[in-house]
C-alpha cells in the first residue's frame, strides 16, 4: 500500500527531548484521540503502564475500556485483535516479551499475517502487534531474544524496529494508520526506563506535532566514505559508537539504520555499498538464516552489487540461546568493540 511521508506541521520545534517510550506513547495517545477505533490490549498495560513503559500514563486519559489489561492468554487476545481489526477497528496488542510469541503464534502468523492474502485481498487486518525485544541485562534464554528476523521471514507482516525517539513516534503513527498488520518491536534497553539505563542516543528531539515516517525508508544515521554498516535497534547506537572511535584512526564509517525490515530499503544499502565497497552487517538476532544473511544477499543480488562488494562481514549472535551469566551473555551479544573490529577487518582487507 502506497505511503506518503508526512513531516511535522511545524518544523524547528525539536528542542524538546523525549525518551523512546514517551515518544511511542505520544503517538499512541494522539491516534486514540483521533480515532475511537484505536485501543490497546496487553498484560499489565493499565495500572502498571506497561512493564517497559510502553503505555505509561494512557490509562489516566483513556480508561480501562481502551487501555485493556487482559488475561495471560496470548492466543485469545492477539486473536481477538485480529478479529476486531477485521471488524474494522484498529487494535494494538502487546506481547510483553517477544520471546512469548510461541504461546500465541498461530494467531500471529497463520491468521493475522495471512488473512489478507488468503482472502484474495478482501479482508484487511489493520492492527499493530507490539513487543519488547533484546538482551544485555542477563535475563537469560527465554526473555532476551530479538527474533525480528523470524517475523520478517514469515510473509504477511510489516516489521518495524525503531532506534530513536524521533523514529519511534513517526513509525508508530504510521503503524497505527496502516491498513495491514504491523509488528512493532521496541528494544528494552532503548526505552529510557528508570531501572534499565539507556545508552546516549535514543533520547532525541521529538516534535509535538504528529508526523509519519514511511516504512521501507532506511535512515543514514552517519555518513561515511570507507565502510558501510547496516544495522537496526540497539545496535545502531553501538555502531555509531564504533564509528566515532574509528574516525580518530581515519576510517570513515557510514551507519545505516534499517528502521523497518519489512519492507526493506535495499536501495539505500546498495547505494552506500556502491560508494564504500565494504559492508558490515550488525544484528542482535541469531546469525544463521537471519537478517545479516538477508542484507548481504540483497546487496549481492542488486544490479552491480556483486562487483561493488569488496569485503563483507557479519556481526550477530552466534547460534546459541542467550546464556544467563554475565561473561557468557557479553560474549554472544555484539558490543561496540566487536563492531569496531569487524569494520577494521573489512577496511584492512585487500
Amino acid at each position, binding site marked *: 500500500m502506497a505511503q506518503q511521508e508526512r513531516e511535522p506541521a511545524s518544523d524547528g520545534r525539536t528542542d524538546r527531548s523525549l525518551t523512546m517510550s514517551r515518544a511511542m506513547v505520544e503517538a499512541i495517545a494522539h491516534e486514540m484521540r483521533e480515532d475511537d477505533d484505536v485501543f490497546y490490549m496487553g498484560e499489565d498495560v493499565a495500572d502498571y503502564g506497561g512493564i517497559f513503559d510502553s503505555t505509561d500514563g494512557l490509562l489516566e486519559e483513556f480508561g480501562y475500556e481502551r487501555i485493556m489489561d487482559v488475561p495471560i492468554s496470548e492466543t485469545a487476545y492477539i486473536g481477538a485483535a485480529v478479529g476486531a481489526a477485521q471488524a474494522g477497528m484498529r487494535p494494538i496488542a502487546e506481547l510483553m516479551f517477544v520471546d512469548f510469541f510461541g504461546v500465541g503464534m498461530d494467531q500471529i502468523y497463520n491468521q493475522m499475517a495471512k488473512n489478507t492474502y488468503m482472502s484474495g485481498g478482501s479482508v484487511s487486518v489493520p492492527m499493530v502487534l507490539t513487543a519488547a525485544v533484546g538482551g544485555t541485562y542477563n535475563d537469560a534464554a527465554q526473555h532476551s531474544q530479538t527474533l525480528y528476523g523470524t517475523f520478517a521471514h514469515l510473509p504477511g507482516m510489516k516489521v518495524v524496529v525503531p532506534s530513536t525517539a524521533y523514529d519511534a513516534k513517526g513509525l508508530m503513527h504510521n503503524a497505527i494508520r496502516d491498513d495491514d498488520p504491523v509488528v512493532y518491536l521496541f528494544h528494552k534497553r532503548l526505552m529510557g526506563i528508570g531501572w534499565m539505563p539507556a545508552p546516549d542516543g535514543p533520547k532525541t528531539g521529538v516534535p509535538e506535532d504528529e508526523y509519519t515516517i514511511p516504512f521501507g525508508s532506511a535512515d543514514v544515521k552517519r555518513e561515511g566514505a570507507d565502510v558501510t554498516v547496516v544495522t537496526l535497534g540497539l545496535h545502531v547506537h553501538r555502531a555509531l559508537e564504533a564509528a566515532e572511535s574509528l574516525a580518530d584512526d581515519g576510517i570513515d564509517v557510514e551507519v545505516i539504520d534499517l528502521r523497518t525490515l519489512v519492507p526493506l530499503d535495499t536501495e539505500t544499502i546498495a547505494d552506500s555499498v556502491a560508494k564504500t565497497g565494504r559492508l558490515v552487517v550488525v544484528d542482535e538476532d541469531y546469525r544463521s538464516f537471519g537478517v545479516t544473511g538477508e542484507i548481504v544477499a540483497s546487496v549481492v543480488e542488486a544490479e552491480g552489487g556483486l562487483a561493488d562488494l569488496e569485503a563483507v562481514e*557479519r556481526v550477530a549472535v552466534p547460534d546459541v540461546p542467550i546464556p544467563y551469566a554475565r561473561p557468557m551473555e557479553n560474549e554472544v551479544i555484539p558490543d561496540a568493540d566487536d563492531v569496531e573490529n569487524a569494520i577494521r577487518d573489512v577496511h584492512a582487507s585487500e
Partner: protein
Amino acid sequence: MVSVNELQSMYENMVTARHYEERLQEEYLEGKQPAFDISAGPIPGELHLAAGHEASGAGVCQHLRDDDTVTAPHRPHHIAIAKGVDLKRMTAEIFGRETGLSKGKGGHMHLFDPEVNFACSGIIAEGCPPAVGAGLAAKKRNTDSVAVAFLGEGAIDQGAFLESLNMASVQNLPVVFVVEDNDWAISMPKHRITDVANGARRADGFDMPGERVDADDAVAVYEAARAAVGRARDRNGPSLLEVQVHRRMGHFMGDPEGYRPDEDKAAAERRDSIERLEADLRGHDVDDETIDDLRDRAHERVEEAIEWAKDQPEPEPADAYEDVFVNPASGVTDSEPSVAETGGDD
C-alpha cells in the same frame, strides 16, 4: 493424620525458603543502589521471590519422592527447596557461577536438577505439558511415580494449562496441578482476568477432582496434597489443587507495586503460614528449643549455600558455545571477513 516428624520437615523447608528469599533480596539489591539498575550487582536480571508461598511447596512436596517429577514456574525457589534440589548448586546458578546447576546458562527462572526430577521455566504455564509427559512416561513404564506441575493463578488462562488438564484427564495420567493463587498476575488483580474466583472449579470441566485450600494452614495443604498425590500414585487419575498463598514481595525485585493497595500487602504480611505452623508444632508438644534448632539449622544452610555460591568461579565467555548440538562458529563475527577475489572497481 500428619506426624510430628512431617510437621517439622515442612517447617524446616518453609523457614529455609523464607530465609533464602530474604537473603537473596539483600544480595540482589546490593550493587543496585542508589539507582536500581537491573543489570547491576551480584545477581543481575529478573528475580521473582516467593515469600508467602512456602506452604504450597512444602505441603505438596512432603508427599513426593526423588523419582517424582516437579515442574515449576518463574517463581521456583520454595518449590525447589521442598523438592530437595541441591541448594548450593541452585544458589551458584542464581549467582551465575560455573558450578551452578546449569553452569550459569540458566539463571533463577531456568533451574534444572535431574537428580530429583525438578525443572522450571520462565514461560507462563509451559511447565504443564512436560508434567503431563512425565505422567505419561510413568504410566507407560508402569511405575508408581507421579508428576506435579506448579503454576500461578495468572497461568490458568493459558491454553497450555487447559490443554494439559484435558490430556491428563482423558489419558488418566498421574499428574497433580497445583495453582498458587497469590491474587496478583504482576499488576492484574485476579478479578480482572477471570470471573471464576475458585480456580479449582475448572477441574469440573475436565471431570477430575478439584480442591481449593488456604496456605495459611500448611497442614490443610498437606492434607489436600496427600489426597491428590495419593490418587495419582494409585493410578486414579489427575487432580487440581488451588492453594491460596500471599505475595509478601513484589512480582519481581524492583517492582514498585504502585498498583497495589497498601492494605492488600499488609494483609499478606499478617497472614503468615510459618507462624501458624509454629503454633501447630507447639500444639504437638514440640518445645521452643526444638523449634529454635530447626530454624537455626535452616538459616545456617542458607548462609552456607550463599557463601559457597559467591566463592565459585564465573564461567568463561567461551563456555557459551558448549551444550549445543552443532558447534556454532565461536564469537559474534566470522574470524575473517569474506573478501571478493577479484576486488571491486575502485
